[in-house]
Every structure is written in structure tokens, then in C-alpha cells.
């Protein structure tokens, strides 16, 4: 008996010794960092019959999402493990693999990202699992919206349950309070990734455009066929973005409220979570790409940002401001709409690499306003430029209130009843006199041109016979150069029979005068639109025009002091 116990003890100590040796061998790591003990853990998705519906109903889009997993994972891995590598590693090698092979034949199943982003998963497993948790939620929302068996009310209830379930993990869940752009773009490491890797960054934003954009056809389609056609069109548009990269890729982070407004309006919490998710993707890229963050500080910075994206207090803006911000950043800078897609491309208003704050500053007619308003939470404006704080300087508090909408305050239409058109001194066309708002003719025209540059607006105007007639009449009374530009934008049916000689003169002048760069940009854009969107050949002039940011509008500062618009009351920003 005694010898038996002795034998067991001997065997036990031998087994423990052997095991310890093996564990030490496995644990051996050439790292000087302090031991990181992470207890992050994964959780199963909410059960339901809707699960995997999107996969079954929209297999092409679903498979693309699997490929997207790879793009994020390999990006983080390379940024972290190859900080000194040539830019071509990501911009050419990985980009080409992804766009020419992976996206052409995407994986059939969601990927195990830990097997791709091995080092990244080890430096910040908490952040990785945060992403995984949000991606699960993302996919389940597609499943619910794709489920033809569910009524709209059932979809609403199920998505509400999904949100509740998502929030049961406060250690993983992105906040459903919108965060300001300051969190993404106002940090010491910000913008590094987009500036160093414009093509890959455009690809990631293309992913995000499709990921949020697909919600829109799922929401707006009235039948399965319409939804399928809408999803197919959005996927096709995403693939078009890959051509001649990064020209047609988004130039700023696509915001759900802009790309999928119907979805964002109905499910604002989910949309905010997705924006925070995508925003943190960018933040992690910046932290990893920016050499100012030392290697041994990457984890700490990622965790710090992750905590800010989870809490409900730091960098918070109101849902109204978030909606507003999405509109101000400009859909045309985010890759354009995800439904009602037209053959042409919207003309971005900013250059690649610029920030969302700059995009907001460039908002048509909104620049040049003095008196920065720090209340525009998180919309960090460069106060040094043009003495403008962009939108921050606007005081909408006195605008007449119209159609208040809690969910979408920014979308409330302006009340034009208070606007009076009056003949100007030249007696040609009217200068507009809104209550307390003066706009001269050129400003009106700038605005008109800008609106007509938007392919969606243009298309709608052209479809509406009354509006088309009104526009034709208006064009009759326009100065020659504006008339020419408008003619270029409109299909032949809306054009006048032949441009006047003065118009020709003005057109040639516009092509060379820096003052008329807006005009030449329009032309480049129009020419481009006339071509097939898949056409690869692009003239150098077009490329040049497209590569440059659209000029800031020359529209004089608007005086909004007497306008009142719901949702524009800006509460003070809370920051930690």
C-alpha cells in the first residue's frame, strides 16, 4: 500500500515536472513587456430563426464580408509586425491580393481572424474581441432585415432585442452614444494611416461603405426582388470603387446616417454602434501606423481608445449632432449613396487624406463664417483657416422651425415660405431675400450648380417634368457661363439648342481661369460621368481634376442668425 502511494507520488511529480517544462517551452517569448493577463472572453450570438438568413438570401454579399475580415486582420498584423516595411507591402502586395484574388473569389465562411492577425490578437485581445462582438451584431442585423418571414414590427422588436443582448457585454460593446470626430481624428496619432496608405485606407472605407450601405436596400426595398436588386447594385458599386483605386473610394469614413439614412433613422442606436465600430477600426489603424506611438505603447493606446468607444461619457455628441455631422461631412465624400445608384460618381469636396472636420468646413456655402462655436461637439475645426470654424460658426437657433423630427433633426426641410425672391438692380434674375438672409445671385448660382453636380439630385430634377421646365426657364435668364455649365450637366432634352457665342467664350475662359476651377471640375466630372463607370481609361486631365479637392465654394458667408432649424441646438461637449 505504502509503495503504491510512493509510486503514485513519484509518477505525479514526474508528470508535473514534464508538463511544467513543456509549458515553459511554449511560453518562452522574446518580449520584454510586462506580463499581460487578459481575461477577455467570447460569447455566443443570440439564437433565432433569422440567423444565417442573409447568407442564404444574399450569398454574394455575405461572402464579401468574409473577405473583409481578412482585410482588417492582415492590415493590423502587417502594421504591427512590419512597422518599417515599405508602403508597397500593404498598398501593392496585400492590396492586389485582396482585390484581385480574395474579393474576386471570397471565402465561403467567416474567417478566424486570430489565425491571420496573430500578433495583433496577442497585443490587444480585448479590442479584438470587441470587434468580433460587434461584427456578430452587425451580421445578425443583416439576418433580421433579410428575413422575409418577419414583419416590419417583428424586425423592429428583434433588432431591439439584439441591441439589448449586445449591451449585456459592457466590457465589449461599443457605446450607443455617438462619439465626436475628435476621438478619431483629434488624437496625436490620428490620420497617420490614411496619409501613409491611401489606397488601403480607401479599401477599408469601401468595406465600411458597403457594410452600412447594404442596410439601405434591405430597408427601402419593398419586395424581395427589390431588396435583392438593391443589394446587387450596392455590391456592384463597391466593386466599381476598386477600379482605378483610390479615386472612387470614400475619402472620409462613411457614416451610417449618410449612407444608410433610412436605417439610421429607424435604428439609430444600431447605426451609432456601427459608426463607433468603424471609427475605432480607423483609430487602431492610426495607432499601429503611427511611429509616434512606440511599439510598447501600442497596446495601451488601443485599450485607451477602446475604453473611450465603450463608455457613455467621453467625446459624446447628441444623436442630432451625429446626424448633422454625417450630412455635413458630405455623402459625396463617403462613396456616394447606397441606393438609387447612378452610373456616374459624386464629386468629392475634399482631397484624400483630409479629415472629416475639413470636409465639414468645405460644406457648400457654409465656410467663411466667423465666430467658431465650440458647441458643435467634437467637430474639431481648424480655426486657422480662413477665419472660419465652418459649420461651427453657424447659428441656426433663429431659423424657423419646420417639421421637427427627433430622429432626424437635420433632415428637416427649410421653410422657404420666408424667402422672397427679388429682382436685383440689373433686373436679370433675383437676389434671394430670406428673412434676415441675403444671398446674391452668384451665391445662388453656386448653390444651384453644386446641387446639380450631385447625380442623385440631377437625376431627380430631370425626371420631374415640372422641375425640368422650371429649370429650363431659369436657364434662359442665366448669365452665359452658368448657363453653359448647367447645359453640360443636363441631358440633351433639357439643354437649349445651341450655346451662345458668349457662352463659348466663357467656357474657354473657365478652362484656364483659376477663378473658374469649379467649372472645370464640373466638366471633368461630367465627362467622367458620360463614360461607363467601369471604363478604366481616364485622361490625365480628368485624373488631375479628380485628384484635387473640389475648390471651396466662393459663396459668401451665409448669415443664419435669424434662421431656426430644429436639432441644431448644440449642447456642450462632454469630455473626460
Amino acid at each position, binding site marked *: 500500500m505504502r509503495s*503504491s502511494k510512493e509510486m*503514485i507520488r513519484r*509518477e*505525479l511529480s*514526474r*508528470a*508535473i515536472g*514534464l*508538463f*511544467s517544462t*513543456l*509549458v515553459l*517551452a*511554449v*511560453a518562452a*517569448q522574446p*518580449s520584454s*513587456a*510586462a*506580463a*499581460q*493577463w*487578459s*481575461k*477577455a*472572453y*467570447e*460569447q*455566443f*450570438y*443570440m*439564437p*433565432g*430563426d433569422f*440567423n*444565417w438568413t442573409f*447568407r442564404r438570401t444574399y450569398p454574394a454579399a455575405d461572402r464579401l464580408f468574409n473577405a473583409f475580415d*481578412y482585410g482588417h486582420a492582415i492590415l493590423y498584423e502587417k502594421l504591427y*509586425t512590419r512597422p518599417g516595411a515599405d508602403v508597397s507591402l500593404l498598398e501593392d502586395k496585400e492590396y492586389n491580393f485582396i482585390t484581385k484574388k*480574395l474579393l474576386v473569389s471570397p*471565402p*465561403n*465562411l*467567416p*474567417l*478566424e*481572424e*486570430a*489565425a*491571420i492577425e*496573430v*500578433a495583433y*490578437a*496577442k*497585443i490587444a*485581445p480585448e479590442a479584438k474581441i470587441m470587434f468580433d462582438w460587434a461584427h456578430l451584431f452587425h451580421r445578425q442585423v443583416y439576418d433580421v432585415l433579410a428575413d422575409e418571414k418577419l414583419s416590419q414590427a417583428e424586425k423592429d422588436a428583434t433588432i431591439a*432585442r439584439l441591441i*439589448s*443582448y449586445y449591451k*449585456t457585454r459592457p466590457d465589449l460593446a461599443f457605446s450607443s452614444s455617438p462619439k465626436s470626430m475628435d476621438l478619431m481624428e483629434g488624437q496625436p496619432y490620428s490620420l497617420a494611416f490614411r496619409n501613409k496608405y491611401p489606397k488601403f485606407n480607401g479599401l477599408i472605407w469601401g468595406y465600411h461603405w458597403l457594410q452600412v450601405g447594404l442596410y439601405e436596400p434591405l430597408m427601402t426595398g419593398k419586395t424581395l426582388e427589390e431588396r435583392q436588386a438593391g443589394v446587387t447594385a450596392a455590391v456592384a458599386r463597391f466593386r466599381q470603387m476598386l477600379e482605378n483605386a483610390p479615386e472612387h473610394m470614400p475619402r472620409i469614413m462613411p457614416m451610417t446616417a449618410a449612407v444608410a439614412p433610412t436605417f439610421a433613422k429607424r435604428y439609430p442606436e444600431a447605426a451609432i454602434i456601427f459608426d463607433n465600430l468603424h471609427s475605432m477600426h480607423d483609430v487602431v489603424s492610426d495607432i499601429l501606423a503611427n511611429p509616434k506611438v512606440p511599439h510598447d505603447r501600442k497596446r495601451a493606446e488601443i485599450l485607451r481608445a477602446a475604453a473611450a468607444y465603450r463608455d457613455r461619457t467621453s467625446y459624446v455628441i447628441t444623436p442630432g449632432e451625429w446626424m448633422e455631422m454625417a450630412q455635413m461631412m458630405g455623402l459625396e465624400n463617403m462613396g456616394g449613396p447606397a441606393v438609387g445608384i447612378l452610373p456616374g460618381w459624386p464629386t468629392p469636396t475634399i482631397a484624400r487624406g483630409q479629415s472629416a472636420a475639413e470636409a465639414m468646413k468645405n460644406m457648400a456655402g457654409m465656410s467663411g463664417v466667423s465666430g467658431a462655436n465650440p458647441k458643435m461637439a467634437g467637430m474639431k475645426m481648424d480655426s486657422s483657416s480662413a477665419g472660419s470654424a465652418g459649420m461651427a460658426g453657424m447659428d441656426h437657433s433663429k431659423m424657423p422651425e419646420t417639421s421637427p423630427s427627433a430622429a432626424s433633426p437635420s433632415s428637416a426641410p427649410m421653410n422657404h415660405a420666408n424667402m422672397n425672391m427679388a429682382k436685383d438692380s440689373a433686373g436679370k434674375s433675383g437676389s434671394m431675400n430670406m428673412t434676415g438672409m441675403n444671398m446674391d445671385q452668384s451665391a445662388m448660382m453656386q448653390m444651384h450648380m453644386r446641387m446639380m453636380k450631385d447625380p442623385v439630385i440631377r437625376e431627380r430634377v430631370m425626371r420631374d417634368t415640372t422641375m425640368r421646365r422650371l429649370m429650363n426657364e431659369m436657364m434662359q435668364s442665366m448669365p452665359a457661363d452658368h448657363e453653359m455649365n448647367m447645359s453640360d450637366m443636363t441631358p440633351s432634352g433639357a439643354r437649349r439648342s445651341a450655346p451662345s457665342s458668349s457662352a463659348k467664350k466663357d467656357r474657354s475662359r473657365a478652362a484656364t481661369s483659376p477663378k473658374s476651377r469649379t467649372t472645370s471640375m464640373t466638366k471633368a466630372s461630367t465627362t467622367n460621368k458620360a463614360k461607363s463607370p467601369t471604363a478604366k481609361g481616364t485622361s490625365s486631365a480628368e485624373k488631375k481634376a479628380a485628384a484635387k479637392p473640389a475648390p471651396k465654394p466662393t459663396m459668401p458667408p451665409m448669415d443664419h442668425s435669424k434662421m431656426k432649424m430644429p436639432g441644431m441646438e448644440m449642447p456642450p461637449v462632454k469630455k473626460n
Partner: protein
Amino acid sequence: MKQNSGRFSRHLTGAGLIVFLSIWGATRVAAQTDFYNTDRGRPVQIEDAYVTERHAFELKLAPVRLERSNGGIYNWGLEPEIAYGILPRTQIEVGLPFAYVELGQRRNAGLAGLDFSIMHNLNVETETLPALGVRADLLAPVGSLAAEHAFASFTGMATRTTQWIRFHVNGQYTAGPGNARPAGGAPRIGGPAAIELSRWLVGGAIDKTYPLSALLITADFYASKPIEAGSRVEYTTGTGFRYQRSPTLALDAGVGRRLNGDNPAWFLTFGTAYAFGIRSLFPFGR
């Protein structure tokens, strides 16, 4: 020779039938499983340090093992298991090992015990630490092919991932009498194939993942001391793969060889796993 060949065909047909039934059943379970998280015996003995996700059930319907010992003796093992992620990083599991053994002209089949286990993952792998896990098993003496006594096993696991390969090490110790004999004439305590009971077991595994193909290839090597007193240390090696066929179905298969000891043998394994959730057990899931 001809007789042996016929028996082999019968056993192979039986294995194929179980595989078919398990896949057929799998398509009717709406769930997802994960080829990346390895389990013991699926397809190799050495497993990783991670557990079933919180709130998930993982049903392993047909982990089959066919063993051919020297002399052409075939033994079968089938151990359906169900695991549940009951707490953060913690799973409980119940297994029902069935065995079919040949002893000359005698053929016995039956339950080889009832296996309860609890496994806890201590941490996620980080730059400085491997993932670590611990597990306790209790094999209760239930069934005609079960041992006379209960056995408790304690296992430690570690997982380390590099750019190319993952490493796992396991160490296990089993407490219980060393002179117990299995019921039903089974040659090994706890059943010949369903459960390998050892006084101790130490080993390592490597695996290589092909994430774009949802495929993992693995191999292991371990030393174990059979629980019977006086037995010699045995060395076993195995290799296999895990493959995610769809979000609802993962397959694994392997082959191995016990290299020495009283009963050197080849073995084949096959398994499927499905994960699912029960809504009423979820927070906010009602």
C-alpha cells in the same frame, strides 16, 4: 486473410454509416461551430486551452474511434458529448462513452462510463503569456464496460500561437485505484477506445491553420502511463484535420498509432460538432 478483409470491410461500412448519419443530422441543427478551437480526441488527443463560448452548447454527436490492434482485433468507441459555456471562460461537459470490443470470439458492447468535466480557461493568449486552461474530469462507473471505480483526472493546458504554427501542451494526472479491472472483459480500464485512461499523460501538439479555407491540420505526440499498475509508459502519435464545412457543420478526422506497450495499435477518428444556443438561457433573450 479473407476473413480479416471481410471484417475490415464491415467495420469500415459501420464507420461510414455513423459518419453519414452524423452529417445528415448536422444539417438540421442551426448553429455555428469553430474549427479553430480543438478538443481532446478531435482529431488528436492534445487540445488547446480554450473552452466553449459563453452561453453556447456544443454538441459532439459522433466522435468515433476505430482501433485496430495487433492481430486484427477491432475496437470501437463512440462518445457523444455535450458542452455548455456556463460561465465566462468556463464550460461543463457530459460525455457518454460507448464501446464495442472484440476478445477472440467474444464481442461486447456497452456504456463505458459517464464522464463529467469542468474546464476553465484562465486567460487569453497575450504577447507575454500563453493561454492557459485547467480541467477536472470525473469518470463514473456506469455501464457494462465501465471500470469498477470512479476516476478523477486533472488536466492543464497551454496554447501558444506564432505566425506559422500553434503549439499546445497538455499534462494530465488521474487519481484512482491502479488495480481495478474493467467490467465486461474489456482489455483496458475505461473501455478500449472510447476513453484512454492513464495515470498520467504529457504531450504536445502543433497545428497549422489555413483560415481562408477554414482548415486546420494538426499532429500530436504524447507519453502516457496506463493506469494499471506495472504498465509501461506508452508513446502515441497522431495527425488529422478540422474543417469547417459550413457555419453549421465542422468535421474532423485523424489517424494515429500507439507505438509501443502491451497493445500497439492503429486508430482512426472522426467527429462532428455543432454549437447552438437555447434562447431562454440567454440574458435578454426571451
